[in-house]
């Protein structure tokens, strides 16, 4: 607030965001260095990042983008979506459909048109909604359009009827559960229980090749950076302040003359598209998309990432997603049965003792160090966390 940087919109966006700037720099370094060290540094060297690790980190980056999407609506506008995994999965399915079409006649049944599971179901031709997915550009449009249109229709109905709070959370949960059940069915034409898998290549590049993996990792990093900047642009505009007004006092915003439902709808659709992009980058890296991604537990986990990181900061969401998922990777390896209990415990602890998440804790520590006399001068920290 005190020192506003002028200049182009992008410079201003970056220069006025101290914590975000560090995060973006770190992300940029990771996005460039990890692929390089995977490809150029010889195996066995200390600086070599294995393809396994790179893929794992790539997954984290996708989750982080998903967390940013959730923080945008929950942290800034108070929309607690417990169904955001659905948008992630839809983006993933759109990418998966493209990857299936890329297999061509290399499938088990060697059908040049139909994916294996369709041949297995005795289908003779491609359903209409699979048309066009052999084109990469079309699939990419659908990565945005499928989650975006669903979010638009769902949001228009829910927000215009003024469904808020817990009720909204419940129907978002119902939404993802309904999709889970639908995608499980074989005759939906999305591979049923098994989902879409056995992908071969993307844009002609072998998906198993290190180079392709490195490129996907780089793309995930860039997508996260761009997604962060888009979200940051939104929350620092006047629109962002209207969102905060809606979060803090919805009726005040209405009586000030803002059509609350349109604002919610806008940010909900943007968020769903970011989630879709995250899903689309996730699928080629993990090599499978199945209805399990629609499971309500997945959507709840996203909320935990954001809460642990610190909601309403955007960079907190990134930190939370990476931290919790790293913990998950470690603990599901070490004590698999305990992980869900730990995750639940983590959420309870965060809610009780760290309402502002890890980011808030960090600010508190810094604050103490700066003024050991006691509290005071808190406005700087508050502005940092909120702006």
């Amino acid at each position, binding site marked *: 607030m005190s020192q506003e940087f002028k200049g182009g919109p992008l410079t201003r966006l970056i220069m006025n965001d101290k914590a975000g700037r560090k995060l973006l720099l770190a992300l940029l370094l990771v996005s460039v260095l990890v692929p390089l060290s995977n490809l150029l540094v010889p195996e066995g060297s200390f600086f070599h990042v294995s393809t396994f690790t790179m893929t794992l980190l790539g997954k984290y980056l996708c989750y982080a983008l998903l967390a940013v999407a959730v923080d945008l609506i929950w942290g800034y506008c108070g929309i607690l979506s417990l169904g955001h995994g659905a948008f992630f999965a839809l983006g993933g399915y759109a990418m998966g459909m493209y990857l299936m079409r890329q297999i061509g006649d290399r499938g088990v049944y060697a059908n040049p048109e139909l994916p294996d599971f369709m041949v297995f179901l005795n289908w003779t031709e491609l359903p209409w909604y699979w048309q066009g997915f052999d084109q990469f550009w079309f699939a990419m449009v659908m990565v945005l359009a499928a989650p975006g249109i669903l979010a638009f229709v769902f949001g228009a109905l829910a927000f215009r009827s003024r469904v808020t709070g817990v009720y909204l959370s419940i129907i978002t949960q119902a939404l993802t559960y309904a999709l889970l059940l639908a995608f499980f069915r074989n005759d939906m034409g999305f591979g049923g229980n098994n989902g879409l898998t056995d992908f071969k290549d993307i844009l002609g590049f072998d998906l198993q090749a290190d180079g392709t993996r490195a490129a996907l990792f780089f793309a995930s990093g860039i997508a996260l950076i761009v997604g962060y900047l888009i979200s940051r642009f939104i929350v620092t505009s006047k629109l962002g302040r209207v969102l905060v007004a809606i979060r803090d006092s919805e009726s005040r915003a209405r*009586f000030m003359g803002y059509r609350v439902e349109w604002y919610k709808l806008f940010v909900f659709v943007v968020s769903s598209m970011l989630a879709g992009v995250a899903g689309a980058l996730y699928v080629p890296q993990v090599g499978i998309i199945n209805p399990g991604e629609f499971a309500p537990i997945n959507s709840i986990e996203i909320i935990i990432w954001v809460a642990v990181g610190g909601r309403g900061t955007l960079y907190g969401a990134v930190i939370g997603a990476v931290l919790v998922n790293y913990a998950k990777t470690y603990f599901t390896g070490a004590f698999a049965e305990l992980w869900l209990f730990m995750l639940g415990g983590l959420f309870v602890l965060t809610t009780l003792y760290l309402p502002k998440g890890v980011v808030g804790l960090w600010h508190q520590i810094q604050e103490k160090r700066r003024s050991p006399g006691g509290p005071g001068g808190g406005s700087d920290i508050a502005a940092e966390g909120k702006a």
Partner: protein
Amino acid sequence: MSLAKTKHIEQSTVLYMNGVSVSFDGFKALNSLSLYIEPGEMRAIIGPNGAGKTTMMDVITGKTRPDEGTILFRDEQDLTRYDEAQVANMGVGRKFQKPSVIESLTVFENIEMSLKGGRSVWQALVQKLTPARQQKIDEILELIDLTDRQHEEAGSLSHGQKQWLEIGMLLGQEPELLLIDEPAAGMTDEETMKTAELFKRLAKKHSLMVVEHDMDFIEALDCKVTVLHEGRVLAEGSLETVKANPQVIEVYLGR
């Protein structure tokens, strides 16, 4: 002829309420209420709890739909057909009883957001702080005496200052009609008198409808008073006339 004549007479109202009734589960919150506010007028509304004061504001601002009756704004717009945001954008500002400012935004940002115009999503995304808007914000900050604290979070203000900030936000909307619910609640005597002064200054440019319990405050406003009781107008006139009205003494002032 006669039609044109009545129309001419009606044109002198900012707010025209005629026979407005609302009931909730059989309870008549408003019972054929009629009330007229003239341009530039200040009107105080008093009445016991449950008299229908808040419901009346809800009905005017589009929060509640009346069961029957007419509400005209500036003799032309039927307010019963619009929602809160539309009514607000037509020029009706509302201040709540509980100060409702956006606590996690700064005082400056609260005012900035209230400024007239730029209500669509797209405008809100790209709107910049022009010198004209900056100047307008400065003027309002000056008026509500919060220039020094403009960069602090609104949540850190005292109760009275929040009330003032909310009044400032109303002014930012440049409304023709201001509906103000218990502005003096929780204010010190000095703040109360300052608020009355401010309202009197505002009444020249705007129409004000002030709901209040504080008799000293109403006396300081020095304006026409309407007493509501059981959803209808019980008495209307100067404070002295109203105070002398036996019915008003019976239901409201007490003996």
